[in-house]
C-alpha cells in the first residue's frame, strides 16, 4: 500500500528521491492512514484531548527511541534502556523522598542513566563484548538495583513538585464556566511533549551538523574505514551509549513524574518498543542508517496504534500481535525498496 504511494509520489514529483526520504514518506503515509482509520472508527479519536494524550504517551517511547537510534546507527543496540529508565526514576524518587530538591533529584536520575550508559560503553569498547550481551547484562543489573534499593515496592507521596514535569503543560487556558466554576478551554501542551521536541531537534542537529554525528554514522557504516580515516571509533561509541543512557534516565523521570510514583517495575520491555520505533523509522540494525525524524514517526505510529486500538476496545494482547506485524512489514518494505 505505502510502497505504491511512494512510487506514485516519486513519479509525480518527477525527480529522484533518496531511499531514506522514501522510507520516511512511506512511514509518514502509514501514520496518516492510521490516524484516518481510527478517526473514521471513533470521532473522539481526533479530539484535542486525545491528541494530547497520544503526545504524552508517545513522549517516553520517543525519548527512548531517539537514544536507541544513536546506538543503532553505530551498529550496536541497547537492551538496557527499559531497566535504566526504572533505575533512574527510582533513584530520583528516593532522592526526592530523602529531602533533596526535585530538580536536583531528577538530575541525579539522569546522571544515573548516563552512568549506566558509560558502563555499557566501557564494557563494549574496552572489554570488547558485543553490544547485545553487554546491554543484556546491564538490563538485568539495572533492574536488579532498582528492585533492591526500593525493596521492590513503589515509592509514592513524592509531592506535587515531583509530578509537575510529567503532568504540567504549557499554554494551559482556563476560563470561567457558565456555572461560575473554572473550565479548561485548552488543556495545554504537556511538558513531556515539549521536552521530546527539544531533545529530538537537539539530537537531530547533532547527528547532522556536528562531527560527532558524522562519526556515529561512519562508525556504523564501516568501523574499520572510520578508524583508518582517523575517527576515534571507541570514543564515538562511548559517547553514543552515554547519551542513550542519559535519555533513558530522562524518560524515566518523565514517566515516574507522570505517575508521581517511583516504580521499580516500570519500563519492562520498553527497549523493544524503542527498537521498533527506530526500525519502523528506517534505522538499520546493520548500522550506518537511521534518523531522528524517522524514529519520531516510528514512535508515533506505535503510539497512535496503541491509543487507537485501546479506544476501539482491542485487547492488549492483540495490540502486541499487531505491533509485531507492523515491525516486520516495515523492515520488509524497506528491503524490497533497497533491492529495487
Amino acid at each position, binding site marked *: 500500500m505505502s510502497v505504491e504511494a511512494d512510487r506514485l509520489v516519486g513519479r509525480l514529483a518527477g525527480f529522484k528521491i533518496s531511499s531514506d526520504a522514501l522510507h520516511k514518506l512511506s512511514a509518514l503515509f502509514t501514520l496518516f492512514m492510521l490516524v484516518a482509520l481510527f478517526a473514521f472508527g471513533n470521532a473522539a479519536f481526533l479530539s484535542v484531548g486525545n491528541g494530547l494524550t497520544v503526545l504524552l504517551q508517545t513522549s517516553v517511547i520517543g525519548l527512548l527511541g531517539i537514544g536507541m537510534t544513536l546506538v543503532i546507527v553505530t551498529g550496536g543496540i541497547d537492551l538496557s534502556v527499559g531497566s535504566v529508565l526504572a533505575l533512574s526514576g527510582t533513584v530520583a524518587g528516593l532522592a526526592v523522598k530523602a529531602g533533596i530538591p526535585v530538580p536536583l533529584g531528577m538530575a541525579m536520575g539522569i546522571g544515573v542513566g548516563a552512568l549506566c550508559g558509560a558502563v555499557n560503553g566501557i564494557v563494549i569498547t574496552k572489554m570488547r563484548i558485543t553490544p547485545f550481551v553487554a546491554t543484556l547484562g546491564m538490563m538485568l543489573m539495572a533492574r536488579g538495583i532498582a528492585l533492591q534499593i526500593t525493596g521492590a515496592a513503589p515509592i509514592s507521596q513524592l509531592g506535587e513538585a515531583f509530578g509537575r514535569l510529567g503532568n504540567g503543560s504549557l499554554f494551559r487556558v482556563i476560563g470561567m464556566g457558565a456555572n461560575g466554576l473554572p473550565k479548561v478551554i485548552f488543556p495545554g501542551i504537556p511538558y513531556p511533549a515539549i521536552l521530546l521536541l527539544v531533545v529530538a531537534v537537539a539530537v537531530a542537529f547533532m547527528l*547532522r*551538523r*556536528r*562531527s560527532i*554525528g*558524522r*562519526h556515529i*554514522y*561512519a562508525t*556504523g*557504516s*564501516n568501523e*574499520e*574505514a*572510520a*578508524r*583508518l*580515516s*582517523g*575517527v576515534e571509533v571507541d570514543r564515538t561509541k562511548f559517547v553514543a551509549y552515554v547519551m542513550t543512557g542519559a535519555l533513558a534516565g530522562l524518560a524515566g523521570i518523565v514517566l515516574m513524574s507522570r505517575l508521581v510514583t517511583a516504580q521499580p517495575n516500570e519500563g519492562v520491555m520498553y527497549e523493544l518498543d524503542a527498537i521498533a520505533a527506530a526500525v519502523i523509522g528506517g534505522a538499520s540494525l546493520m548500522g*550506518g*542508517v537511521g534518523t531522528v525524524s524517522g524514529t519520531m514517526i516510528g514512535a508515533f505510529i506505535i503510539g497512535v496504534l496503541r491509543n487507537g486500538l485501546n479506544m476501539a476496545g482491542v485487547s492488549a494482547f492483540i495490540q502486541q500481535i499487531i505491533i509485531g506485524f507492523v515491525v516486520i512489514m516495515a523492515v520488509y518494505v524497506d528491503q524490497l525498496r533497497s533491492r529495487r
Partner: protein
Amino acid sequence: MNAQVSKLQPLVEMIDIQKSFGGVHAVEHVSVDLFPGEVVGVLGHNGAGKSCLMRILSGAMTPNTGRIRIGDEDVRFLSPQDARRKGVEAIYQTLALADHLDAPSNLFLGRELKTRWGNLDDRKMLEEARRILHRLNPNFKNLSDPVSQLSGGQRQVIAIARAIYFNVKILIMDEPTAALGPAETAMVADLIRQLRREGIGIFLISHDMHDVFDLCDRIVVMNRGRNVGAYHVKEVTKDDVLSLIIKGEMPDGWRPRDAASRLQPGLDSN
C-alpha cells in the same frame, strides 16, 4: 641544489622492523627506505608481510621492535592520525570508505571542515570535494549519493583524493588498480607519475608486474616476513623478481643488469 640535497636524504627509513602475532612472525627485521620523488614497489606473495609492513608505516599497526625515521626525527605512530600528521597517507586495498556517507563526507572523514561555531561546514566540503574530485576525474558526478552507489573507479578516486589532498609526503598505495578497468588504471598510473614529479615518495604494493616495471624506481621483495631483496628496477628482469617472490632468492648465477644505477637510489629520471 636544494632539491638535490633533499633527494639524498630519505623521506622515511624503516629500520629493523619486527612484528609478530602470537607465534607468527609477520615481519622479521625488515629495513626499507624511500626518497623524495621515488616509487618503491613492495612485492611478495599474499601473507609475505608487505601489507603488514605498510600498515606499520601508516600507523594502523604498531611494530614490536624497530624504528621509523622521518627526516631527522624518530617517530612513533600509535594511530593513523599520528602518521597523517607527519605526511604519511595510505590508500588501502579495501578502499576504507564508509558506504552510507557521500563523497564529501568520506573525503573529509576524521578531519571535517567546520564553521566558526564548530558545526560541520557541508557547503564548503562539497565545494572542495567537487574541485578535488574533478581534478582527478572531470566526469565525477553524484557527489551527494552514498558512495555505495558509485562505481569502483569513482570509489578509487575518492580514496586517492583523500590521501593526496592533505599535504601528503609519503603515500602508501595498496593494490590501487586491482579493482579498476583499463582506462581507470591508466588514470591512476598517470597520477602516480604526477605525484612523483611533485617530489612525493610512494610505496606501491602491487601484483601486476607490468605496473611495477612501468612505474617503480626500485623494488623491495618480501618473502615470509623477510626482506629478500631490494633492487633498482633496471638491475632485474621480471623472471628475477618472480624468483624472489616465489623462492625468496635470485636465480642461480644472477648478476645485476646495470650495476651503476644501484648506487643512486632516487636519482632516476622520470
